[in-house]
């Protein structure tokens, strides 16, 4: 079992609002192993982006409430400004959801890269070959370096950000919804490029965040399904897809349209009801209103049960296997 690069225990990140706390990430625990791609899936509002961004950059209105995230032996949630600056980019980096709009419009690409690298006492010259090599992977010509962001298409800017974010070969790379805004054809090429960069050691392991389980199936080694700020289930991709445990994962997989399934012959079923409002939310399993198998015990918070490596947070699995 490869050792864990990043260990997260009972992490709590809330949003401060005028009406109280929105418990976006409420006691999440998982491990990211060396060289692994961990997919985080879940509907909008389940806390996956808050978790991803929270690990890298915690800014108001996000508030670190509790728990820890151990990277390189240190809890990166509680580090001083100076220390966290060193960790960011060198140890943990991010390809943000807003990647197409993440480059300063009034600076040449070369200038942005140079300024960024100087912040970590490196420079554009020092990493020139690496940059050119990585640009080739993402199918961008060297000429891009002398251009301004405004001269590039959205897709090109995103691929450029993929290169820039991994120039320091971070241990952990957070990829936050990098495929959602893309067309089908570019989606596959971006996933393939990310895979190739990992093969070429641009980063050790990846946290790949998306709502699209089908994309996760292609690239993730393990998948963590989140629901309403908590972990529902974590497990290897193949097993998760063939034999989902948590009722929510089951229903989510069942609701995915696939080429080959047609309305006329087989009617897919969605999940009735709506995710709960996380403002000052109380105890108990947060899926209980929508869960067909909910019973009395679900009123209390379900712990995360460990079934030989597969983790599931549901009272049905209190005694090892499903009741």
């Amino acid at each position: 079992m490869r050792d864990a690069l990043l260990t997260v225990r009972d992490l709590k990140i809330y949003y401060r609002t005028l009406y109280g706390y929105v418990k976006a990430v409420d006691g999440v625990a998982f491990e990211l192993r060396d060289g692994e791609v961990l997919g985080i899936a879940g509907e909008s509002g389940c806390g996956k982006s808050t978790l991803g961004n929270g690990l890298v950059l915690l800014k108001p209105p996000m508030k670190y409430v509790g728990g820890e995230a151990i990277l390189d032996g240190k809890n990166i949630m509680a580090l001083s400004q100076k220390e966290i600056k060193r960790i960011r980019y060198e140890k943990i980096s991010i390809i943000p959801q807003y990647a197409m709009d993440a480059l300063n419009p009034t600076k040449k690409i070369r200038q942005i890269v140079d300024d960024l690298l100087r912040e970590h006492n490196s420079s554009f010259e020092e990493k020139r070959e690496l940059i050119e090599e990585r640009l080739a992977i993402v199918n961008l010509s060297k000429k891009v370096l002398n251009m301004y962001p405004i001269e590039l298409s959205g897709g090109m800017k995103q691929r450029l950000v993929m290169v820039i974010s991994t120039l320091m070969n971070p241990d952990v790379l957070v990829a936050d919804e990098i495929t959602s805004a893309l067309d089908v054809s570019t989606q596959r090429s971006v996933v393939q490029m990310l895979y190739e960069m990992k093969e070429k050691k641009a980063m050790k392991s990846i946290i790949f965040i998306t709502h699209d389980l089908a994309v996760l199936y292609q690239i993730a080694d393990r998948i963590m399904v989140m629901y309403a700020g908590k972990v529902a289930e974590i497990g290897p991709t193949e097993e998760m897809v063939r034999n989902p445990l948590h009722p929510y994962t089951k229903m989510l997989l069942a609701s995915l349209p696939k080429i080959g399934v047609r309305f006329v012959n087989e009617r897919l079923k969605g999940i009735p009801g709506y995710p709960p409002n996380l403002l000052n939310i109380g105890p108990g399993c947060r899926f209980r209103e929508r869960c067909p198998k909910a019973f009395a015990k679900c009123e209390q918070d379900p712990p995360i049960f460990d079934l030989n490596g597969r983790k599931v947070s549901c009272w049905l699995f209190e005694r090892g296997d499903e009741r």
Partner: protein
Amino acid sequence: MRKYLTKKAIIYLITFFFAVTIDWVIPRFMPGNPIHFLISRFATLPEAVKVIQSYFTQAFGLDKPLHEQYLNFWRALFRGDLGISIYLYPQPVAKVIARSLPYTLIVLLPAVLLSFAVGNRLGAFVAKKRKLDNFALPIFYTLTAAPYFWFGILLAWLLGVVFRLFPIAGAYSFAMTPSFSWRFIVNFLYHWVLPFSSLFLVMLGGWAIGMRNMIIYELEANYSRYLESLGASQSLIRRYAYRNAILPQVTGLAIQLGTVVAGSLTTEIVFSYPGIGYILMQGILNQDYFLIQGCFLFIILGVLIANFLIDIFYVIIDPRIRKSYTGEV
């Protein structure tokens, strides 16, 4: 990029044409036809009646058909002949204005440039901490809200009358004659301080507030967040944000120019500083319409040229315009 500038140039030419037309139209078509009113009133003064009478008809060319009057007006304009000043008869208006132009520029230009530089730095600095922001903002608001000339009066009273630090009238003391001697220059600067600082402070407030809002906006932008996510220092992030926040301030400078010029004119009156504002005031008091119209044209011309220079400067510093012509008119 060239397209952007030519389009701007066309706009300014049309604006100048529009302004000159207003300048020509207003005296002729205002209610109560002020020209006849003028002629009848001056006609009563026995000595000057003949000269002014013929001068007016000739100047306004009232006998000729309208379109001809209009063309003459333009021809005279290109010859630089803005007519003869009544108040400083027989000096031509163009000469009177030319003599007072340097005084206006000596106060106006440094005030605009310095207040722009200092104001923006201050605005960016204040946006750093909330405590600073709450303290400095009301001051900036008061500064930018104050009428230019009133702030001049306030400074003249405080620094001139109460503390007697600076003279509060004229560009140099009466005993002096303008020359490049050291003594004259010191005296000149001594008189220059109050008009300059009143303009400088009022403008400063405006730039500071503008920058404070702009930089908050830029610091919230995605590229700032991305830099911070990759461990960039606050100074780098602020440098980028400041660079982008200054751009709209430059366009703001172009738009503000009109009010800024107006402000300097009124401030000159407070200090009886012999610039264009002062002679414009004299023109109004003495109903010297030619002088008024001359000043009007000079001000418009000045503002248009300044605007065009700022546009050129803006294209140089903002690559977004240079790289793809999407600039709004």
